[in-house]
């Protein structure tokens, strides 16, 4: 099934920016994704052991007893992200169960990298109070100082490490 080309990144960026602006105008806040994920993690932990969650000063904010974990703007926004991505993939023929990786490694190694990178990002995202969508996009648009610092650190860190993992992509 032929894949359509990606859109011009500037146009896609404008589309994204308008969506972000709409969020500000309608609800007074921007986008995000890691906020929903930490809620999922806290909730899963609380189903195993509620007391452990209550004792932990971080998880208790999200899934302590009496906290309605999923009654949060981000949770529903993230569900929408999945649906929106699906719709766009459907319309452009990019729905496929496959693994994307560079020509010099196998899928399985890619999975290990993805998992490891995921751990780093999960950790880093909560340390920085958000991920690229929450801090960089949203914070960037509102000119928050910390968010801009975050953005530059992100690109800096990425470029520094890129050389060491180039086998995976190139």
């Amino acid at each position, binding site marked *: *099934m032929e894949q359509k080309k990606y859109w011009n990144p500037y146009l896609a960026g404008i589309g994204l920016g308008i969506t972000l602006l709409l969020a500000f105008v309608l609800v007074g806040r921007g986008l995000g994704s890691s906020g929903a994920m930490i809620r999922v993690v806290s909730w899963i932990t609380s189903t195993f052991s509620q007391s452990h969650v209550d004792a932990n000063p971080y998880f208790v904010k999200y899934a302590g007893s009496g906290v309605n974990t999923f009654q949060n703007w981000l949770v*529903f926004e993230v*569900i929408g992200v999945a*649906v929106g991505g699906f*719709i766009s993939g*459907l*319309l452009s*023929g990019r729905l496929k169960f496959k693994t994307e990786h560079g020509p010099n490694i196998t899928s399985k190694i890619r999975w290990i990298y993805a998992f490891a990178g995921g751990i780093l990002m999960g950790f880093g995202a909560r340390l920085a109070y958000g991920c690229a969508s929450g801090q960089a996009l949203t914070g960037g648009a509102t000119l928050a100082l910390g968010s801009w610092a975050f953005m530059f650190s992100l690109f800096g860190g990425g470029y520094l490490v890129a050389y060491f993992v180039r086998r995976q992509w190139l």
Partner: protein
Amino acid sequence: MNEIEITSGRMNPHIDPHLTIWGWEIPVYLFIGGLVAGLLFFSALFYIRGNKDKYPTAVKIVPIFTFPLLSLGMFVLFLDLSHKFYVFRFYTAFRIESPMSWGSWTLLVIIPLALAWSLTWVNELWPNFKWPVNWISELIEKLKNYQKQMAWGLLILAIVLGMYTGILLSAFNARPFWNTSILGPLFLISGMSSGAALILLISKSEEEKKLFSRIDMVLIGIELFLIIHLFMGFLASTQVHIDAAMLFLGGEYTTVFWIFVVGLGLILPLFIEIMEAKGLHVSAKLPALLVLIGGLILRFVVVDAGQTSRWLYKFLE
């Protein structure tokens, strides 16, 4: 009526936050009822039109599910009863004014009919299957002669069953959210849509999948229309009904209803099916699954919201 005394005595969050007496059993039963109604409807319809070999899943395979599903539904209903040992009394009298009586008798007729219907197809599907006792095979042979009559009976009873699941609720006019005649048709169409979705899910023939995908699209469209008019009707009624509608337009049921029932359960499957009809390839199982889950959640939401809406003391202050 002493409703006020009951209200003040038990109306606290620890006993009866809003006098809920129907838990999860009734919505599950309503969903199964609607699903079976849809399945039997399509099975009988396509048999009568002479398409039993063109659409084998719909006519022959699907009825096999109906008997177990109906039994499950009756069991769930049984679980909901407070005085379980008196369940037989449903069948010792017929009260023409009670929707529950109508329902129990209709089910009493449908269950053996559905069983007989599904048994007549067993030999066609599995020709090597031999019944352990001879008189069963003889009985089934005799039943095969009455397939046409059974089909007509099932067609009509399926519509009655589907409508009944909605009318059961709308008979309770004391609950403003159920005080609408749209619930009957809405649940019937929703049940038929669930039936079409299940057929889509298990069918193996491309032709059949295309047909039921189209049928499902039309049914979803009608369902959306009915939902819109449901709310229009409420908003044009008395203040109590407007408050009931506001539960879904800014109240506590807004999120679940519009995102999961309408968005993911109706509009998204409709969109996927339209794209599929236009040629974009995507598995038919996905919209079917979404429709089924959406239908289940619809039943839960309607039953729960109905019990939250009230004529007196609008807000639990």
